[in-house]
């Protein structure tokens, strides 16, 4: 804001010191020329003039003299009060006149400190010193108790003149030093104030940006939660569409068969209305009964299919037990395949099961099944026309591994690092929203498992899920009991934090892989 403070006595001060020196020199010259002795009376006069001049200056300058340096000001004031008393004493003025002299510092003090404090200070000074001076003069205070009794010299106006100059130099010098320090202090405090202001602004900026960051953080968390929720809804949509289609077929058959049976019964009724049944009609009856028989067999099939579907759904969603449990992962895989049957069979995708001997795995089955669904669906959707999805399971020490391999288009190396990014998708819009793998990875992370990917463009992709047999839930982020629950997601996770992503292990393999068609 301002230039650095070089010295308390800033530039205009030097001019004032020069002025004071000139005045002092002039005073001394007068003393020399007039050959005046330096008597106490002379000093009394100097002090008196100092007081008068200071008061007058302050009077004239008004409040432009900031009362910055209070102790210095007070010292000057006290000095003035005492000086007034001395002057009054030595010029031999009456005690009443001396009291009037005291008005000068009082006025000055009031100018500096207007208001109640100035007034009180002035009154105190006037009363205190007035009491002493007047008291001595009237004999109330013993003579010589306050001021030494020195025989005054009267009448020489030369003293007054010399004293005027000497006091002038004292005043200028004193005020220069005082105001110099005051100005320096003001400057310093101004600078400090400026720096302080800047600091305050900076801290305000920091606070504001912190607040904004916080807001963004919250928003990010919310968006992430919303996305996860939406993705869950989307996968729920896939699930429902699959189920609806799967149920539609047996339902269609049942619906038609119901109508067929009704018709058959009507026909039988018509035939049986006659008392007699001839050979031709008997043939009809046989035909009708055969039809009913066929229809019933079909109905059995349809009902069995629907029961199986509902069973699969229950296994998949673990409607009956959504808490952690020891489960046979094959069951979950089978139920997932049953739900995705439409997606797979409808598109000439063969499913190969290469199941090993797995122990029961402690996990949240509904969540793990969601991972299987995401991965199998991804595999199926990566296949353009016809292809194979191979599901391999095997025990691996105190863990199990489930490998889901497709013969799809594969993932180019440059995309491998991004597959877990929220919203990253290469599918058409209607197929997904790019959250499946992120959700899967999070579920596996929470199970303290691993999700690895190997992919070769044009050959296919293999996702490997590794789950510990005994569930060690990672961190405090306990899996939600239900897949329908939307959880809030730590924004750090949402933002990527790629270092913690197991995708670092992702590799693109050269050469061909063994696929079992």
């Amino acid at each position, binding site marked *: 804001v301002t230039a650095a403070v070089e010295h308390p006595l800033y530039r205009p001060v030097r001019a004032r010191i020069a002025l004071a020196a000139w005045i002092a020199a002039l005073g001394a010259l007068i003393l020399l020329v007039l050959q005046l002795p330096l008597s106490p009376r002379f000093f009394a006069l100097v002090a008196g003039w100092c007081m008068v001049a200071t008061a007058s200056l302050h009077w004239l300058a008004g409040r432009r003299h900031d009362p910055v340096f209070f102790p210095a000001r007070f010292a000057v004031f006290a000095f003035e009060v005492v000086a007034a008393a001395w002057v009054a004493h030595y010029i031999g003025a009456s005690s009443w006149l001396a009291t009037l002299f005291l008005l000068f510092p009082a006025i000055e003090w009031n100018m500096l400190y207007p208001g109640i404090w100035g007034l009180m200070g002035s009154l105190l000074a006037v009363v205190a010193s007035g009491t002493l001076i007047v008291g001595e003069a009237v004999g109330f205070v013993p003579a010589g108790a306050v001021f030494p009794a020195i025989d005054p010299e009267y009448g020489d106006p030369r003293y007054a003149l010399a004293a005027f100059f000497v006091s002038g130099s004292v005043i200028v010098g004193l005020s220069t030093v005082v105001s110099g320090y005051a100005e320096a202090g003001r400057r310093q405090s101004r600078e400090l104030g400026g720096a302080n202001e800047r600091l305050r602004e900076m801290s305000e900026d920091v606070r504001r940006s912190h607040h904004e960051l916080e807001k963004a953080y919250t928003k990010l968390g919310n968006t992430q939660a919303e996305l996860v929720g939406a993705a869950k809804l989307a996968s729920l949509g896939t699930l429902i569409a699959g189920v609806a*289609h799967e149920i*539609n*077929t*047996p*339902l*269609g*058959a049942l*619906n*038609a*068969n119901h*109508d*067929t049976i009704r*018709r*058959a019964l009507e*026909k039988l009724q018509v035939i049986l209305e006659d008392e007699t049944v001839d050979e031709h009609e008997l043939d009809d009856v046989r*035909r*009708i009964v*055969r*039809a009913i028989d*066929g*229809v019933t*067999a*079909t109905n059995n*099939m*349809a009902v069995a*299919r629907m029961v199986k579907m509902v069973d699969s759904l229950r296994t998949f969603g673990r409607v009956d037990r959504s808490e952690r449990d020891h489960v046979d992962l094959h069951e979950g895989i089978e139920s997932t395949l049953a739900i995705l049957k*439409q997606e797979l*069979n*409808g598109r*000439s995708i063969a499913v190969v099961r290469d199941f090993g001997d797995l122990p029961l795995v402690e996990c949240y089955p509904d969540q793990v099944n969601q991972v299987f669904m995401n991965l199998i669906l991804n595999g199926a959707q990566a296949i353009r026309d016809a292809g194979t999805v191979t599901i391999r399971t095997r025990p691996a020490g105190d863990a199990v591994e489930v490998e889901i391999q497709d013969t799809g288009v594969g993932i180019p190396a440059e995309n491998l690092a991004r597959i877990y990014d929220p919203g990253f998708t290469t599918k058409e819009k209607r197929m997904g929203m790019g959250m499946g793998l992120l959700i899967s990875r999070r579920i596996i992370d929470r199970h303290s498992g691993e999700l690895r990917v190997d992919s070769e463009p044009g050959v296919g992709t293999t996702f490997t899920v590794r789950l510990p047999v005994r569930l060690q839930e990672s961190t405090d982020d306990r899996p939600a009991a239900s897949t329908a629950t939307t959880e809030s997601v730590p924004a750090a996770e949402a933002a990527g934090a790629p270092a913690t992503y197991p995708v670092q292990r992702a590799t693109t393999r050269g050469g061909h892989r063994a696929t079992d068609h």
Partner: protein
Amino acid sequence: MADTDNATVMIVDDEEMVAMALRSFLELETSYRVLTFTSPEAALEDPAVGDVNVVIADFMMPGMDGITFLRRFREEHPEATRVLLTGYADKENAIRAINEAGLYYYLEKPWSNDHLKLVIRNGVERSTLFAELDERVRALEGANQELREIRRRLVQAFL
């Protein structure tokens, strides 16, 4: 062939229960000969199929979709009226089916027996009418051929 009561209806659906439900209904309500297949390849390769008046195919089948099947079936059996029965209705596939397979009707699952019966009866009628037309055209051609032969002989006799 002209006898609509003895027409042949072929049903191709990978879901046995659908094929069976259709067969049961048709056997009860009509006197058509009903052939059911759960695999489109088997339907194409079966040598005992003979003439087919109406062919009803499912859309989503493993191995071959209904549209491809109907297109290929038309090559061998142009006389058959083609019907697609689908649980997966979308405009794109409907248009494809009509254009590629010369589809007569597009039925959605779940179907209504009455509607199905009507579609099949119309299909059979259409097929028999085509067959009749075909027969008449052939008869006409035969007669024409005969006339030409007579004319040729007449010309020969005169020369």
